[in-house]
């Protein structure tokens, strides 16, 4: 009771005396008395403690590191190893990305002839046409305009509608079965848009959309409504393109006569190429030689592979590989043909069976074999790099995970080291706090210490043998520092929060 009363009155007095604006004049060089004090004792005035300068803090941290060099070296080593690992993974990912790009490029180039075979034999479907238009290549647009006989305005409207239609189709295709079923019933493909364009279909669609909070269109609703309103026109234009293309396909078929498309394409750099262009296809004169060469190669490859049906060829290959003739595979056939003199023997056997093609020589067969091997390598590379560009930071799923786990382990390692440092230095922290250090200073001191170690460790790690990519070095050092700083936050927070005496008691 009594105590409470005292405190109440004390509070009043406390607020009176507690004047932060009063500046103490304690520190004066020329003070009286041996210790620089005045003769009388001054009242205690309390104010906020100033903050210690950043550089002074850095200096104290560096001093501390110098004193505990061994512990610091251990931490540096942990960071260095982690950063080196990171560098390794980053370099690998850079290389893999380059390989992936190259592979996709070359595979796409090698498929040119297949693409043209497909285009020249079938008119395609509505969705494919829309997607082609939405992709926005100028040749495709010009070709479509030729087939459909569009005016410029019509072509532009169609292009715009195609882009929107593709977005809508992608959205609908991405939904799970139940939701898609609710929105568009049993329709699929372009028919979904046709269904939505009908009055009842559109109404049901938008009602369902409004009712279900989880469903949200990734594009403005007005765009979709505009697309649906113009759908009959769009569909009509697409159909015109398709019929135009069908006519062109028929014309090309007439031009090639009894030849297969591939055989005809082997002469694509000649009159047949002109025929294709005349039919309206966007068959560039400069891709024609490549297409022709690929077609010829394809024909040659087929001719050689027909050797599997020839008994004599099978026997040759089986003899070479010490296998039964019935077990000979295409791969063995091509490996057999890699050496020119064996290719010669094979060609002789093929000729004897009447299966050869004009212009097929032993050198050509060996060249084809080398090409086949290369194609197989490309295939493998494509399979190995299939996940590149996806996952975390474009590292690919597997590398991303590996990296994340390794960084976690590294951060825990650093955190542990710093925690030990903190525990070891409880007494020092307590003393500093007795001397008037702010929590922020203690925290900054430890984070700074960790950062400095991070810089050293990062540079050390990046300078390890595989660090030959400049960006990689930068990223790795930055990550090393960030990692160290993050790892040090908890230990330094613990250090800063200690009450001075609590820390002092811990031995």
């Amino acid at each position: 009771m009594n105590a409470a009363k005292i405190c109440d009155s004390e509070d009043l007095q406390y607020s009176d005396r507690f004047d932060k604006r009063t500046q103490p004049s304690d520190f004066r060089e020329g003070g009286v008395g041996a210790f620089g004090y005045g003769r009388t004792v001054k009242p205690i005035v309390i104010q906020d403690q100033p903050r210690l300068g950043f550089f002074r803090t850095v200096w104290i941290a560096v001093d501390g590191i110098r004193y505990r060099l061994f512990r610091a070296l251990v931490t540096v080593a942990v960071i260095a190893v982690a950063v080196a690992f990171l560098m390794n993974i980053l370099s690998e990912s850079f290389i893999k990305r380059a390989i992936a790009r190259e592979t996709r490029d070359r595979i796409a180039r090698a498929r040119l002839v297949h693409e043209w075979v497909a285009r020249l034999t079938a008119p395609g479907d509505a969705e494919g046409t829309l997607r082609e238009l939405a992709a926005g290549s100028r040749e495709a647009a010009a070709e479509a305009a030729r087939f459909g006989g569009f005016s410029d305005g019509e072509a532009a409207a169609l292009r715009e509608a195609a882009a929107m239609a593709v977005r809508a189709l992608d959205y609908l295709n991405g939904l799970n079965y139940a939701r898609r079923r609710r929105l568009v019933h049993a329709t699929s493909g372009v028919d979904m848009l046709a269904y939505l364009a009908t009055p009842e279909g559109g109404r049901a669609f938008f009602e369902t959309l409004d009712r279900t909070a989880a469903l949200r269109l990734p594009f403005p609703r007005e765009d979709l409504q505009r697309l649906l309103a113009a759908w009959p026109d769009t569909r009509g234009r697409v159909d015109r393109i398709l019929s135009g293309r069908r006519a062109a396909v028929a014309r090309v078929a007439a031009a090639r006569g009894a030849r297969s498309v591939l055989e005809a394409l082997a002469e694509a750099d000649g009159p047949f190429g002109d025929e294709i262009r005349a039919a309206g296809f966007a068959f560039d004169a400069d891709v024609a030689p490549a297409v022709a060469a690929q077609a010829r190669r394809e024909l040659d490859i087929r001719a050689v592979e027909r050797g599997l049906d020839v008994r004599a060829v099978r026997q040759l290959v089986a003899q070479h590989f010490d296998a039964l003739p019935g077990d000979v595979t295409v791969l063995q056939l091509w490996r057999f043909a890699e050496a020119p003199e064996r290719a010669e023997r094979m060609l002789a056997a093929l000729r004897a069976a009447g299966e050869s093609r004009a212009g097929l020589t032993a050198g050509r067969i060996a060249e084809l074999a080398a090409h086949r091997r290369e194609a197989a390598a490309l295939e493998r590379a494509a399979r190995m790099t299939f996940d590149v560009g996806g996952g975390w930071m474009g590292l690919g799923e597997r590398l991303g995970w590996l990296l994340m786990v390794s960084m976690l382990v590294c951060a825990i390692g650093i955190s542990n080291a710093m925690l030990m440092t903190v525990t070891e230095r409880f007494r020092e922290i307590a003393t500093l706090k007795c001397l008037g250090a702010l929590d922020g200073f203690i925290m900054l001191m430890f984070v700074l210490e960790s950062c400095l170690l991070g810089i050293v460790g990062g540079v050390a790690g990046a300078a390890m043998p595989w660090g030959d990519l400049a960006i990689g070095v930068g990223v790795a050092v930055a990550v090393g520092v960030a990692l160290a700083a993050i790892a040090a936050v908890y230990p330094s927070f613990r250090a800063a929060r200690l009450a001075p005496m609590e820390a002092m008691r811990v031995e």
Partner: protein
Amino acid sequence: MTLSAIQTGAPAPAAGAAERRVLIRTVGLKKSYVKKGVLTEALRGLDVEIYSGEFISVMGPSGSGKSTFFNMIGALDSPSQGRVFIDEVDVAQLTAEELAYLRCQKIGYIFQSYNLIQYMTALENVTTPMAFGGVMPDDARRRGMRILEIVGLKERWFHRPIEMSGGQQQRVAIARSLANNPSVLLCDEPTANLDLHTGQEILDILVRLNKEAKVTIICATHDHRMMNVCDRLMWVRDGRIERVARREDVKIEIGSIGGKRAPAPGGAPS
């Protein structure tokens, strides 16, 4: 002194208490720890007034709560119950920044185990509190050298604690505690780890500080020489104040009880 009327009054007020300000006052100070489910009561209600400019010794057996009491009045730890007023300011109501300021500028701490920063030289140890207090490095260095000179360590300013003897370390610690001209010095057994001669040197410095600079000194000790130099003595036992007495009174008692405490071996002021 508005509050002196409410105060129940210490058993033995210091000489001339009427004119002297109360610098530190505790009201019903209690502190208990819970460790592994066992409740330990270190302080069971302490009411003390310490006047400005006095030299008070706190005595008591180990575990009597002396150190805990010190931590409370030094604003190093917070009481479980009760209040600590330093110059009529309630310590519990200060923010972290203000507490840091108080520890930095107004209170000097001297510990039994010196607690110097191991990786700093003597001078750096002394200037660190000044740096925290915002003194320019040049001023701090000059002043640090002067204080080191006073404690007799001017020639050893560049030595690290590990290169110094216990007495020298304690003198550095005293120099450090004086860095910002504190109003109060809290000494937790400052002579316990030192031999008789060195301990006497430290004591002399403390006495000089008290007499010449009017620094209030609160000193926990087992050292009976302290009794000869202090103004008042306070005995703590089981977390309570057993007795507070002026030095003159105690001297008489020593005579009468006899043998409980041997008289100081020389150097005692008559």
